[in-house]
């Protein structure tokens, strides 16, 4: 009964596996190319936006209980997502709780077609295209919003203070098979959870290939003004060379909407 949970746990362990520094530089997997929405699996679907260990553990417990075999997956997923929201909510400071959860009708992306900031964009659905540019930088392009960001590898780190921006200033390095990106200089915006984060947000992303060929992200987000403790969020993409990112130019501002539709 525990084997299923073990299999998923082992797969997820790969997401957090960090080789020792002695292994650094020894092998650099090629993450270049097009990635997209995860496979149509239980875990892939649960993490289609993003997910947390709290939610995954609850989902596994529900799936391993024979009493739930006849329940629709939607119900189980919703219950696990509720547990996930509890975890995220418990991580918020009193200040952040005042605006949690953000009313979707107050979302600038919805109201004014404003592209997302990093704390949301990196968990966006659909394509993620990664390209190494020389030895000094990586370019990441997302299907959602057709957003782009540059990651400066150690050698290419720009000197001087960079102005804050929606996607922040990202510096990357390889730790064995894991691409590690540290980002700061992110202007206050909306996080994935969803509520606002401050300009003190720091993000560490760890990307690696899992044994099943998927690309897995473990992101640690720390913000002393809105988070009591760092929050760890995960995401999965599948290799999708057949996909293309298409222009994102037809966002229409809503002409009718209702407030208060998101449940805490």
């Amino acid at each position, binding site marked *: *009964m525990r084997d299923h949970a073990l299999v998923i746990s082992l797969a997820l362990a790969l997401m957090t596996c960090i080789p020792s520094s002695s292994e650094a530089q020894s092998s650099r997997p090629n993450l270049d190319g097009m990635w997209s929405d995860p496979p149509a*699996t239980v875990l892939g679907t649960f993490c289609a936006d993003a997910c947390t260990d709290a939610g995954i553990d609850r989902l596994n417990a529900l799936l391993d209980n024979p009493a739930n075999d006849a329940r629709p997956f939607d119900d189980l997923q919703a219950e696990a997502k509720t547990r996930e929201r509890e975890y995220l909510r418990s991580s918020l400071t009193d200040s952040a709780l005042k605006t949690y959860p953000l009313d979707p009708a107050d979302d600038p992306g919805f109201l004014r077609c404003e592209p997302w900031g990093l704390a949301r964009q990196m968990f966006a659905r659909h394509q993620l295209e990664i390209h190494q540019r020389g030895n000094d930088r990586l370019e990441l392009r997302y299907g959602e919003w057709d957003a782009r960001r540059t990651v400066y590898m150690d050698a290419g780190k720009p000197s001087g203070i960079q102005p804050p921006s929606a996607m922040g200033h990202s510096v990357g390095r390889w730790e064995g098979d894991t691409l590690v990106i540290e980002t700061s200089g992110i202007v206050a915006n909306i996080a994935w959870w969803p509520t606002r984060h401050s300009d003190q947000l720091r993000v560490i992303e760890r990307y690696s290939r899992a044994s099943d060929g998927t690309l897995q992200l473990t992101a640690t987000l720390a913000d002393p003004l809105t988070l009591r403790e760092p929050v760890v969020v995960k995401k999965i993409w599948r290799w999708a060379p057949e996909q293309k990112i298409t222009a994102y130019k037809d966002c229409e501002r809503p002409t*009718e909407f*209702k407030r208060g539709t998101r449940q805490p």
Partner: protein
Amino acid sequence: MKLLRAGLFAMPVLLLCAATASSHHSFSPVYDEKRLVTVVGVVTQFRFVNPHAMMFMDVTDDSGKVAKWTVEFAGRLNLSEVGWTADSVKAGERITVTGNPTHTGSPRIFFRRLVRADGTELLPAGPQRLKSIEEERRQRALQRNQQK
């Protein structure tokens, strides 16, 4: 399901993709995820674009009055994952489309299912993913029961 010409058919539903849509592009402020309506009409335009594909159709009621309906879809990015193209729906086609109505009752729905005149149907990604998930659940339960 009885389809009413130029009419509405409402029922409570729980949909796999409703929750994801609401967290994605603020579905919930505009659409009621607990109700479905079905309309029958003729497509005037299908725009296969981001962030949301859009379809416009003429719906004629019993008195002959034509109403302009708008059908909003997930984005091109999402639809292309399950094989949709810009030619999946053509202007002039007579279709039956089911979706979530707006909170205000305006002639607009969020797409859940489309049936062409020949009976073939087009679906969003959610239901297709669900088939794979249920198979995985069956296999998981089978292994669990064999280990007992």
